């Protein structure tokens, strides 16, 4: 059998397997994501208050510094091997915030360090975050164009 013939899979079997798969616990997952995601946002807000009062930052400076701090914390926790444990339980709650992005860059960097600094760490650093950057830039451009002509 080649190519197209192999499309004649055993559909009964596939349906049968699906009926056995443990269901995803949507409510539990959403609740955990809400809790952890909210907590990360609270940490961000906490940084904001501190920076505002102690260093009297404001506007873009303030927003940038808070992001940088959160990225730092995310990377640090990844390095300590804690972030993947949080992520395993929190799901989207720790993936969606900027700390999750930091984790997705730092984790392959750590992982591929063994293949050298250039071809390993640096080259493989964006294997997870790459698509986010590509489509992020693309979406940003499209929205920018729409904004321009509106």
């Amino acid at each position, binding site marked *: 059998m080649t190519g197209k013939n*192999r499309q004649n*899979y*055993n*559909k009964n*079997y*596939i349906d*049968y*397997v699906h009926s*056995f*798969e*443990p269901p*995803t616990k949507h409510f539990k*997952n959403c609740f955990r994501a809400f809790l952890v995601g909210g907590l990360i946002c609270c940490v961000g807000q906490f940084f904001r208050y501190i920076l505002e009062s102690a260093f009297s930052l404001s506007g873009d400076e303030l927003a940038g510094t808070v992001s940088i701090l959160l990225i730092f914390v995310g990377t640090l926790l*990844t*390095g300590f*091997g804690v*972030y*993947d*444990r*949080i*992520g*395993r339980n*929190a*799901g989207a709650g*720790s*993936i969606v915030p900027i700390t*999750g992005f930091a*984790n*997705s860059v*730092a*984790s*392959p960097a*750590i*992982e*591929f360090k*063994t293949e050298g600094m250039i071809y390993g760490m640096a080259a493989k650093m964006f294997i*997870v975050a790459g698509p986010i950057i590509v489509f992020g830039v693309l979406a940003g451009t499209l929205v920018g164009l729409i904004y321009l002509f509106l």
Partner: protein
Amino acid sequence: MHTIFFKNKPRIISTGTIAGPKECAGIVGQYVDKALPDDTFGESTYEKAECKMLTYAISKAMENAACKEEDIDMLISGDLLNQIISASFAARDFNIPFLGVYSACSTMSESMAVAASLIDGGYFQKIVAATGSHFSSAERQYRYPLELGNTRPPQSQWTVTGAGATLIANQGSDIAITCATFGKVVDFGITDVNNMGAAMCPAVASSLLQHFRDTGRKPEYYDLIVTGDLGALGSRLLKDLTWEKGVDIQPNHVDCGEIIYNVVEDEFQGGSGAGCSAVVFNSYILDKIKKRELNKVLFAATGALLSTVSSGQGESIPCISHVVAIENV
């Protein structure tokens, strides 16, 4: 006829096994030759650790049989990493002819079947069949970086960190390999790489049914039918698939992947990987055979023959299972 009967009944004279900390917390802990306290085994990378584990298992099997390198005619081994590097790199440390084999997690039974065939033919006297896997190296090759904070789906399995080696000889013990059924590649169209159990199930069913057809034996003939790494979900499916064909393996079937882990953290359906059946069979099961608590065992390790490239291109998962019968004579 896909089954060969070994007239001279090659014997299993010794084994060597090693497993990681998570595995040793489970049932195999007290049976393995070495329980690793940490999964790096003192090496700088997980690939090196996997290779070292395999080397250890092979040396231990020779040591347990009081054999020297010169006594061994052949080393048959394979693993899960690209270009089976663990096996070939382990073979580099031995002055023994090497035959690299690959059938993913079915490598243990494949190498045993090949070894038994070569010995039964009278070409060789002593052959070591070995395989192993490592959670961290497999995870990196097939999935995501270890530290990435993603979630594992509930139908997924956990790659076993461990290695096992079997020394097969023409004489020297009561445990014989009596026949072997070589499996066909079977693909029922499962594309979910996290559901290996369901993908591999039809392949095992096909090989087991072929074995029973060829030998004329019934499942009751065996004290135990051991499958490789179907996990809890896959085992359930296998019982249904074989029952559908009029073969009831329910009473004496056990799956290495299903029994290997005690603690349920993120293993979900159980263990997988070439090391899973290699460790469980060579330590726990063979110990029971040695003590004659089990006398006739059918061993069907199961392998999913996919790669990240094939699954990336939307291919389904072809699987295979080779079956060997081990009996006390």
